[in-house]
């Protein structure tokens, strides 16, 4: 078959790029290795983890908060099988949705491993080794990423597991050891902590979610400790052993003092690495740089008709970042000139409470020597938060000391992930803290905390504090 654009990988970057290409009138094909579309995000990432996060949140509410709300029930029990089944249904619906969108936009879906023959020809190897080829004017590589294993302990997928297996467990672990206090470790760790597991997190650095503003990590540590999670920060894992029915982890702190943890599962979530296996990049002269595909500002690779987007290129490994890149590449191919402001791609952690942020962190501002001011407002002081008993968290606004322009918005608390969009909008239009503070925010809402934090940042004059 002959195409204008062929996309390899059907994750959020790939399928969005495909739809935008089709909208712009390109004859478009998408190649997916698995039988289902949607990639990591839909199948073993964002969506299933959110399904389980919400299930576990409902459980803990029923168990601990209903009574306070005046709802008396017999002690609830976890039906992990049903939880996993419901999660699978959610995934199935979403995947079917993508298949429908491909059909609607007349995008040809080829199932199999895509591999370059040359820069205009891609060989597709199906499950039973059936081969076919497509020729194409342009290619978008959107093959995403895979969990990174520890060098001394590969995933055995039984006791030493990645996020993929953690979403498929048949039982609630008695003691889940989590290696890595980043986004994935904290999300899945908190799920099982709520479902009753003892959860111990071992993190090499001295803080949780270290790429985010320091205040967020500290607050997250506080609220997850309340959940009963235990933490060994500043500890380096030295060995993990699968002893059949249990797994033994050894780690040591900076002074060399070692600890030993025994659990039934060990989730290794130390990050993800770009996935380019079998792509045949050598056939088109693309060389990897630290595992990533090097691209220019327009996401073009060394080969002038081949682009790469999402987790396989530089930048944060986020579904929405990949989506923006997919749209940008498609529009460029149509002669348009879109632009992505990477500073304004929000980062979110779907724990409960959620963590979300956009712009610069306080650490970055300090390092750059920029004169800034901060304003914070705690959820505790918010009527809406008290009404729903979600009083953990705060909003922190960073603003330019001279101009009052908002430089960063950092939220930990209920619904932070949805609220951050307001921060993105404000920053996209370069609003000042006072601009936001002077906008009417509906009462009672969680967003009032953003308004109050902006008042605090403007001139330290929040109303409800």
């Amino acid at each position, binding site marked *: 078959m002959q195409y204008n654009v062929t996309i390899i990988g059907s994750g959020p970057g790939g399928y969005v790029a495909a739809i935008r290409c089709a909208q712009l009138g390109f004859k478009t094909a998408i190649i997916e290795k698995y039988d289902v579309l949607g990639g990591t995000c839909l199948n073993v990432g964002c969506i299933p983890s959110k399904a389980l996060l919400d299930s576990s949140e409902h459980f803990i509410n029923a168990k601990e908060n209903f009574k306070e709300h005046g709802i008396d029930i017999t002690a609830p029990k976890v039906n992990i099988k049903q939880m996993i089944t419901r999660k699978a249904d959610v995934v199935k619906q979403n995947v079917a949705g993508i298949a429908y969108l491909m059909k609607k936009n007349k995008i040809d879906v080829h199932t199999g491993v895509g591999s370059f023959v040359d820069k205009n020809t891609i060989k597709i190897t199906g499950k039973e080794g059936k081969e076919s080829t497509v020729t194409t004017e342009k290619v978008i590589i959107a093959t995403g990423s895979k969990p990174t294993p520890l060098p001394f302990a590969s995933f055995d997928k039984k006791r030493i597991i990645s996020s993929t297996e953690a979403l498929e467990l048949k039982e609630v672990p008695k003691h889940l050891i989590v290696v890595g206090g980043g986004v994935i470790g904290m999300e899945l760790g908190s799920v099982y902590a709520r479902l009753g597991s003892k959860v111990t997190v071992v993190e090499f650095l001295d803080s949780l979610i270290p790429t985010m503003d320091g205040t967020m990590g500290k607050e997250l540590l506080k609220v997850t400790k309340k959940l009963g999670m235990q933490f060994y920060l500043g500890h380096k894992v030295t060995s993990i052993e699968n002893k059949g029915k249990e797994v033994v982890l050894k780690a040591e702190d900076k002074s060399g003092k070692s600890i030993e943890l025994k659990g039934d599962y060990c989730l290794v979530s130390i990050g993800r690495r770009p996935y380019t296996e079998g792509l045949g990049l050598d056939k088109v002269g693309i060389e990897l740089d630290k595992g990533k595909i090097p691209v220019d500002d327009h996401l073009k690779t060394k080969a002038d008709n081949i682009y790469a987007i999402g987790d396989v290129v530089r930048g944060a490994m986020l579904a929405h970042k990949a989506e923006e890149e997919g749209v940008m590449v498609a529009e460029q191919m149509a002669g*348009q*000139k*879109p*632009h992505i*402001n990477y500073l304004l791609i929000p980062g979110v952690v779907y724990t409960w409470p959620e963590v979300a942020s956009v712009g610069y962190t306080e650490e970055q501002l300090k390092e750059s020597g920029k004169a800034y001011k901060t304003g914070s407002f705690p959820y505790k002081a918010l009527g809406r938060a008290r009404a729903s008993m979600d009083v953990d968290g705060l909003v922190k606004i960073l603003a*330019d*000391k*001279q*101009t*009052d*322009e908002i430089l960063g918005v950092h939220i930990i608390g209920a619904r932070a992930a949805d609220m951050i969009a307001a921060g993105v909008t404000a920053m*996209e*239009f*370069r*609003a*000042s*803290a*006072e*601009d936001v503070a002077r906008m009417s925010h509906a009462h009672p809402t969680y967003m009032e905390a953003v308004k109050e934090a902006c008042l605090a940042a*403007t*001139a330290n004059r929040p109303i409800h504090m």
Partner: protein
Amino acid sequence: MSEKVKVPTVGESITEVTIATWLKKDGDQVAMDEVIAELESDKATFELPAPKAGILKIVKQEGETVPVGEVICEIDTDAASKTTTPKEEPKSKASKEESKPTPSASSGPKATGEVKEMKVPAVGESITEVTISTWLKKEGDFVALDEVIAEVESDKATFELPAEAQGILKIVAQEGTTLPIGGLICKIEVAEGTPEATTSRPTETAPSQSAPSGDKSYAAGHPSSAAGKILSEKGISPDQVSGTGVGGRITKEDAVNAQAGQQKAESAAPAPTPSGTREETREKMSSIRRTIARRLVTVKNETAMLTTFNEVDMKPVMDLRSRYKDKFKEKYDVGLGFMSFFTKAVCVALQEFPAVNAYIDGDDAVYHNYCDISIAVSTPRGLVVPVIRSAELMSMAEIEKEVMRLALRGRDGKLSIEEMTGGTFSITNGGVFGSMLSTPILNPPQSAILGMHNIVQRPVAIEGEVVIRPIMYLALSYDHRIVDGKEAVSFLVKIKEMLEDPGRLILGV
């Protein structure tokens, strides 16, 4: 011996000049006839040569307006004998001289607490007001004595304003403000000591309580994401677009319109779309433009100006010209243009109708027995009107040569005041720009001006037949106070007749 150098008489109507630039510094050794300064009148710039060799002592500073005949510098001729000695010596001598008057001339820094009010100085006889064009120092800046703090513009020239005291600047008149002579420009809080000791701004201590909410902000010119995409696709830089959003932000609509605006400029299409830009920009007119504006209104208000028209069949002149232009060029080394025909015809007619060649001075009418014809010439610097002197005595070739010489000097900006003053009648040619018909405005104090226009092939009736002829419309604007309608009309008919029968030019009938 010291030779006093006075402002030379540069032209009849010029009473004062402004010192544009000193090319030599105070104390410099100058040679005889060496150009030492550039002087400027409202008509032209000219050079001032040193009348003697010696050491220059500047009396009037740059930007000062000086009446004709007043001393602007002195040349110490005693030093001329020392011209063979190294330049350093006279210089150091001069600098000693210079250092003496400085402390006495300027009152030293006074006790803190005193406020020096700076007012618009009298910069010239006819100057009644000035405009603050640029503040070179900001509000609250520490300024040193004699440091240039602002540029001020009159309708004649731009000059620099030196600080009259050392201290903290308090601006009173903002940029663009027009002030009368003696109007308050700024205040200087007189301060002693080094700038470091006094520059600390009290504003720093006060926390910036309120955020900027003015029209322009740090975000001025910031395009929204959609606007940014549109602009970059149109190849328009955001700083070329004036944002109408909050704080000067560029909205999507601004970007869409910026695109439309550019297209409008590229193709002067006759079908403008209603989506065109509707911006207006406002800027201060230059002082020269304001002078022109004032004069034109004066002419309209103070004369009884009206215009009479006629048309000329250019065929005879064109035939004559095409027949002899090569021989003419060969013999006189200048092309035979239309200007010589018109100038010649005008001179003959002026002598027949002396009122057209006269002007009113108070209660008198001043007549001329010569024809000094002002020719309007478009130059890169604007319209200039050099004069062909005693044109009535010139041959066709002499007129063409003079026109060429004046046009070239005009193009190079070298026309002297003298070359541009004293005309008795003007000719302007709007035809070079394609004008079919216009009503020229008088060049005061003259009483009439002839307007030439483009030559167009038109059907005309000649002896009962419609024929196509090259026709030029002529317009004569005149001051009815001194020129009667009969005279004006007859004058123009006379010109028409001579051009349609060039033989009459030779005979003067």
